[in-house]
């Protein structure tokens, strides 16, 4: 695969095969589903792909950066220098909010605008080419409170200008519709992937369904996700065509 193609790959081989790669700079994607379904691990590989091309990438999470670093480092597909040399930058959402004295209880709508500027400045300063917000839920709580309907749309516009490919993880129930989050208009996302836990006793499988890719509805095929230290694998979900 040549340099141009690698730059436009997500970073999970089978997903790139299914979607034919071609992630354009400025793409914004949404991974939604219950916690523990593999969203984060998939998104780490999206960042690894950027770092492997010596691009700076950024992860904004609500987990402590120390714990995240050790989780990220546990993958064999991760190179130690990516964290050490700053190719992968990790920020904690609460820490970022704390920098400008922002919290859910006492902040006002202007503070949300300040937070928007802070996010944009950080990405600009890092010259990051890939961004992951995982999960976006704490930010959404804030947006809901102040009815900031266009925050995500504005953020997408800014990130597109800067050529940053972004993926957002949203912890939800089993369907996106259940969430009814007015600040997360689905149409702003070029890519939507739904994650689920499927129970087929004695096995519980994490699966993903590509619901939208490059802005248009996808075939909605479902794949089983396998996550191990070796990386992430996807295989087709085999469904019975008849009841046995």
């Amino acid at each position, binding site marked *: 695969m040549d340099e141009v193609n690698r730059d436009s790959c997500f970073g999970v081989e089978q997903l790139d095969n299914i979607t034919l790669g071609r992630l354009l700079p400025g793409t914004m994607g949404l991974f939604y589903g219950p916690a523990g379904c593999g969203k984060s691990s998939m998104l780490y590989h999206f960042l690894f792909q950027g770092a492997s091309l010596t691009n700076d990438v950024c992860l904004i999470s609500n987990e402590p950066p120390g714990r995240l670093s050790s989780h990220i480092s546990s993958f064999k597909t991760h190179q130690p220098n990516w964290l050490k040399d700053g190719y992968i930058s990790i920020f904690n959402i609460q820490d970022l909010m704390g920098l400008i004295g922002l919290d859910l209880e006492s902040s006002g709508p202007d503070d949300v605008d300040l937070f928007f500027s802070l996010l944009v400045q950080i990405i600009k300063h890092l010259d990051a080419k890939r961004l992951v917000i995982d999960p976006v839920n704490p930010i959404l709580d804030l947006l809901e409170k102040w009815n900031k309907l266009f925050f995500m749309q504005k953020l997408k516009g800014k990130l597109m200008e800067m050529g940053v490919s972004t993926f957002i993880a949203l912890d939800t129930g089993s369907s996106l519709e259940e969430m009814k989050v007015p600040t997360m208009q689905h149409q702003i996302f070029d890519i939507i992937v739904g994650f689920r836990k499927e129970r087929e006793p004695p096995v519980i499988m994490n699966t993903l369904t590509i619901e939208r890719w490059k802005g248009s509805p996808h075939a909605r095929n479902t794949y089983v996700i*396998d996550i191990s230290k070796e990386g992430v694998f996807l*295989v087709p979900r*085999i*469904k019975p*065509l*008849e009841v046995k």
Partner: protein
Amino acid sequence: MLIEEVMSIPKPALRPGAQVLAYASGEAYIKEFAEIIEHLAKRQGRRGILISTQWSANALTRRISLSKMPRMGLKVIDTISLSLGSRISSGDDFVFLSTPVSLESILIEIERILRSQNNECSFLVLDSFTSLKRYYTQGQLSEFFHFLLNRMLEEQLLVVMFDQEAPEGSRVSMELSSTIDHTFLISPGGGKK
């Protein structure tokens, strides 16, 4: 003998990625199965994958003298030992899955082995198509083999599958035989039909 039959196929058909389905039962099956594993992994020194749905790890060790195989030569996806509750042999060459388990688990293990072996695997043997038919529906097996055979062709692995039932025994079997390169009916005593 299957080996002789495979060898008798014109050379272009023996290219990497060839897919063979052998119908055999009883003693002929046991003999041919053991022989093809020994031929590929021991005599030819090739690396490969065995999906074992018929014998536990310990039984398999006796059948095909695994201890004499080159180390790391044969990776076994064992879907029977856990279900039988048999004593699990140690070693890196075995992956244990219980049956019935999702067919996706088998596909995932194959992907893992292919990646860990840096594409050095050159064959895949399925010891018994018949055993799978006991647990999975026709639709599931059709989807499974559709994906498996395509992946193996992409990776250019020789695939040898054994079916202990007659060719017309099931629709999946007939479907398979119409899409793969070669089918053999091995009669008791080793002769080909």
